[in-house]
């Protein structure tokens, strides 16, 4: 009861911030007066009497501390007081505070942004039931681009024959259609799935129902569509009555059966489909039917294992089935071996993305370490300046732990301010990232509790790291000594102190990060200068969706020729052509070539499997691909004339070595074809591939399922794009036509290099700024400490050069040592950088030269002002001041 009573009073005192300080002061006064009087009565001189009274009373500071401890809640009070004191002290040196808070803001902000992305991409699972037990079946070979596993008939075989999976489902994630609803038309993209897709994923609809395996009864038996939350809200005004209505996807009717939950967007992190339809009804939308075609890979396979089956056993089981299928269907099923991965990050790109994000996380952590080192040396310098203040407080009876807590509170204040600022900065950047459409798709980055916690934890860690430097100073201080001598001699120790180590380490980290950013820039430049075998600059691509067209064969070709003619006749067009598929836009796979006279077209008999493009006359010219020998395809090549081909240098070399390629023959698509031209090599699948064989066949002899028109023009791109779209739409009304510039179309290819350059470049820049402030801080501090000494030296006849070298010798040495250490350490970062940058090599001479130059410039920028001050020293005025 007494205890509670007392706690109540103390709490009350604390809240009212009433510590009885006044009362104690009066009591002490009265006490001392009474004691002094008594001493005087005992015969002491008044001054001696007062002194004795004070001596007998004891240490006032300690009594006050005890008194306060009794009066209120000392811990909270001290915290409160330390906080206020720290703010006051920080407010007294606004420049220091600003630099400290800003550098922490940038470092913590960068860390929070990176964590936000890591959190969104890697830590948040897919919005499906138990994502960790979900597997995707992938071909063994490193296959970039589409995530397709196998053909639909093969998928059915896998479903029936495997013994390891509880369920196997398939989907085709590249469906697109024109959605017609209440006379409004809009282009939508979605997913075609097997009936058991939603049941396998374990998702519940937010409105209506999903379709199930039981709804499927053969082709065209399940005209059902599930809407995404986004499409439902934007096109159907979130009307629950939309369920049960009929909509048109291209020309086919589908009944809306349900709406997926807002968080669900399939099994790919970056893809947000608009709709889901059953695969059995896909032909009506796609215009082609993959349900019976074993040669067309259309299904990405996902599944959940039976209880007790390991992924290893499941892989073996699948491969046994694949081997069976290869025996049964030798022409189409190649029996490629399969493996299991976790879906979500574009198949194997997951490894790339993971490597990239972890690499950036490690480097951004280094930035924070550099910022903490910077802050620590700033705090240490301040603590040295405040030795006297601290000594006086210690002499008055303040405990060392109390002083230490005071200094740590200052560090904490700075860190929390920096952390809060960094978090808001990061929130801003993450918000921008959220609205941004990356070439990989849309990334939903949320600032959730985990992000806030990370920011807080980072702030606390920085406070601890940067405040620790002060610990030594407080612990090693001897009040009597510090009060006697000035701060000057105590603050300039002869050897290298912890502050030098901190600055040197910071320089080393900075060098490392600058190296990393230059390596990224070098990789980007290298990529940009990769010979592509075509000239994307100044060319437009127009993709015309001819798939729903009702005509075929000769009529289709006539239509295509009319379109090409229209494009070619556009004012400003210097060249135009058409190609079945533009290089480096994904979806390429080899087509087998057979020697002349082959009758058994088994894959084993193929001599080469080059990329094959169907092109119109004029394509090579429009694309800027150089013809090295012979001729290109022409209007005289028709379905009736002998089959011809243009091959690239690599194909010619692989098949015929040094022999001339012109006039050579091979069989492709069952036709004996003669080589009439040789074109230069290029990049076809991706930028980093080795030289691949390729062949170009006339479009008149090879029907293509898709067609892209390439138009080269010196006119302004957007103007030309509009004219082109208008001209093509005039001939093909009601057809989806997409026009974009060729460089834009290549964006996704350059994206990884671009992302690495931006990320690493930003980190390098941050580190350079930190190093600059650190170096400048130390040089400026050294100079200002020793101005008087410089004055004396100059007065005694020291050459100014000598004075200058004393002023900046130490920071300069640190710069040299730190930069060398950083350069040496960067050797070990190549494996890390290799996961982010194409052909990472930190020993590249231009990179090393760039790093050395950068660090030199940093040094000059940091030292120029302090050095100028040291040189401008005027002995007369300084000595007078002193």
């Amino acid at each position, binding site marked *: 009861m*007494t205890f509670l009573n007392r706690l109540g009073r103390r709490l009350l005192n604390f809240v009212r911030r009433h510590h009885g300080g006044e009362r104690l002061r*009066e*009591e002490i006064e009265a*006490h001392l007066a009474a004691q002094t009087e008594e001493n005087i009565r005992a015969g002491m001189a008044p001054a001696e009497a007062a002194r004795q009274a004070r001596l*007998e009373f*004891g240490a006032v500071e300690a*009594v006050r501390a005890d008194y306060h401890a009794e009066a209120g809640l000392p811990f909270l009070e001290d915290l409160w007081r330390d906080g206020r004191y720290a703010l006051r002290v920080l407010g007294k040196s606004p420049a220091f505070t600003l630099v400290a808070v800003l550098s922490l803001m940038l470092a913590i902000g960068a860390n929070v942004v990176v964590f936000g992305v890591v959190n969104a991409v890697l830590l948040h699972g897919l919005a499906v039931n138990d994502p960790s037990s979900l597997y995707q079946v992938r071909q063994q070979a490193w296959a970039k681009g589409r995530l397709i596993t196998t053909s639909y008939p093969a998928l059915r075989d896998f479903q029936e024959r495997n013994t390891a999976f509880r369920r196997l489902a398939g989907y085709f994630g590249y469906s697109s259609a024109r959605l017609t609803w209440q006379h409004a038309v809009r282009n939508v993209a979605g997913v075609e799935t097997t009936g058991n897709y939603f049941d396998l994923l374990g998702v519940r609809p937010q409105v209506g129902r999903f379709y199930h395996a039981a709804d499927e009864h053969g082709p065209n038996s399940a005209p059902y569509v599930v809407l995404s939350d986004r499409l439902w809200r934007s096109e159907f005004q979130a009307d629950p009555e939309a369920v049960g209505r009929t909509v048109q996807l291209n020309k086919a009717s589908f009944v809306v059966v349900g709406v997926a939950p807002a968080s669900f967007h399939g099994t790919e992190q970056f893809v947000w489909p608009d709709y889901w339809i059953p695969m059995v009804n896909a032909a009506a939308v796609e215009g082609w039917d993959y349900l019976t075609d074993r040669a067309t890979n259309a299904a990405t396979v996902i599944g959940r294992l039976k209880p007790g089956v390991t992924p290893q056993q499941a892989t073996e089981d699948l491969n046994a089935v694949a081997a069976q299928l290869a025996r049964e269907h030798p022409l189409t099923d190649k029996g490629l071996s399969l493996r299991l991965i976790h879906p979500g990050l574009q198949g194997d790109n997951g490894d790339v993305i993971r490597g990239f994000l972890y690499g950036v996380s490690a480097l951004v952590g280094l930035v924070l370490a550099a910022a903490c080192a910077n802050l620590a040396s700033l705090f240490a310098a301040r603590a040295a300046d405040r030795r006297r203040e601290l000594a006086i407080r210690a002499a008055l009876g303040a405990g060392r732990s109390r002083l230490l807590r005071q200094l740590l509170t200052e560090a904490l204040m700075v860190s929390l301010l920096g952390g809060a600022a960094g978090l808001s900065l990061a929130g801003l950047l993450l918000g921008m990232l959220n609205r941004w459409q990356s070439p990989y798709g849309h990334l939903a980055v949320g600032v959730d509790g985990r992000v806030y916690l990370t920011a807080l934890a980072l702030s606390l860690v920085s406070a601890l790291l940067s405040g620790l430097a002060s610990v030594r100073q407080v612990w090693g201080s001897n009040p009597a000594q510090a009060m006697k001598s000035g701060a000057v001699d105590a603050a300039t120790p002869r050897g290298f102190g912890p502050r030098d180590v901190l600055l040197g380490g910071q320089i080393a980290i900075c060098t490392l990060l600058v190296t990393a950013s230059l390596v990224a820039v070098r990789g980007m430049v290298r990529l940009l200068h990769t010979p592509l075998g075509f000239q994307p600059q100044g060319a437009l691509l127009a993709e015309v969706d001819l798939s729903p067209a009702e005509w075929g064969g000769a009529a289709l070709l006539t239509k295509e020729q009319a379109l090409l003619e229209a494009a070619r006749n556009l004012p400003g067009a210097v060249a135009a052509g058409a190609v079945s598929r533009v290089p480096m836009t994904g979806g390429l796979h080899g087509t087998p070539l057979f020697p002349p006279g082959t009758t058994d077209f088994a894959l084993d008999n193929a001599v080469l499997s080059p990329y094959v493009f169907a092109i119109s006359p004029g394509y090579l010219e429009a694309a800027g691909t150089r013809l090295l020998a012979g001729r290109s395809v022409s209007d005289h090549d028709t379905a009736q004339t002998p089959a011809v081909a243009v091959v690239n240098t690599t194909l010619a070399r692989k098949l015929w070595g040094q022999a001339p390629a012109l006039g050579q023959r091979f069989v492709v698509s069952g036709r004996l074809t003669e080589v009439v031209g040789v074109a230069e090599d290029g990049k076809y699948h991706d930028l980093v591939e080795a030289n691949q064989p390729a062949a170009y066949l006339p479009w008149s002899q090879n029907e293509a399922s898709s067609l892209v028109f390439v138009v080269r023009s010196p006119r302004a791109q957007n103007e030309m794009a509009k004219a082109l779209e208008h001209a093509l739409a005039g001939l093909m009304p009601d057809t989806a036509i997409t026009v974009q510039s060729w460089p834009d179309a290549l964006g996704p290819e350059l994206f990884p290099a671009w992302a690495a350059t931006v990320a690493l470049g930003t980190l390098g820049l941050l580190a350079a700024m930190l190093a600059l402030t650190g170096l400048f801080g130390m040089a400026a501090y050294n100079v200002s400490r020793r101005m008087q000494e410089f004055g004396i030296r100059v007065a005694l006849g020291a050459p100014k050069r000598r004075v200058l070298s004393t002023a900046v010798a130490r920071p300069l040495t640190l710069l040299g040592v730190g930069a060398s250490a950083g350069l040496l350490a960067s050797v070990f970062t190549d494996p890390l950088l290799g996961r982010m940058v194409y052909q990472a090599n930190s020993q590249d001479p231009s990179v090393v030269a760039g790093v050395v130059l950068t660090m030199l410039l940093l040094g000059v920028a940091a030292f120029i002002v302090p050095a100028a001050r040291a040189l401008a020293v005027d002995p007369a005025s300084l000595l007078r001041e002193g």
Partner: protein
Amino acid sequence: MKPKQDVQQGTLSLMVLKTLDVLGPLHGYGVARRIEQISGDLLSVNQGTLYPVLLKLEQEGAITSEWGPSENNRRARFYRLTAAGRKLLGAEKRTWEQTAAIIARFLTVKAEDLA
């Protein structure tokens, strides 16, 4: 708080209570002087240490205080024992006596007593 200080403080507060019980209302300096007088030179306590103890006792309700004129007409704070304080003194006194008795028996014990 270290245990050593606790004991000291407890002792000191018992002394304060007893002094106020015997001598009636006193100011801080008076309490300090009386304690010094009674304990002689055996106890070396800084006079200042008394004030936190006085505050603690007041917050516990064992004593009350008010400003008043001292013998030489200075303003001083006078402390007075409350009923609760008197009760507390009694309880503390008994505890202390018990403790002292137990310790005394331990200190005077001989080997043959335990045989």
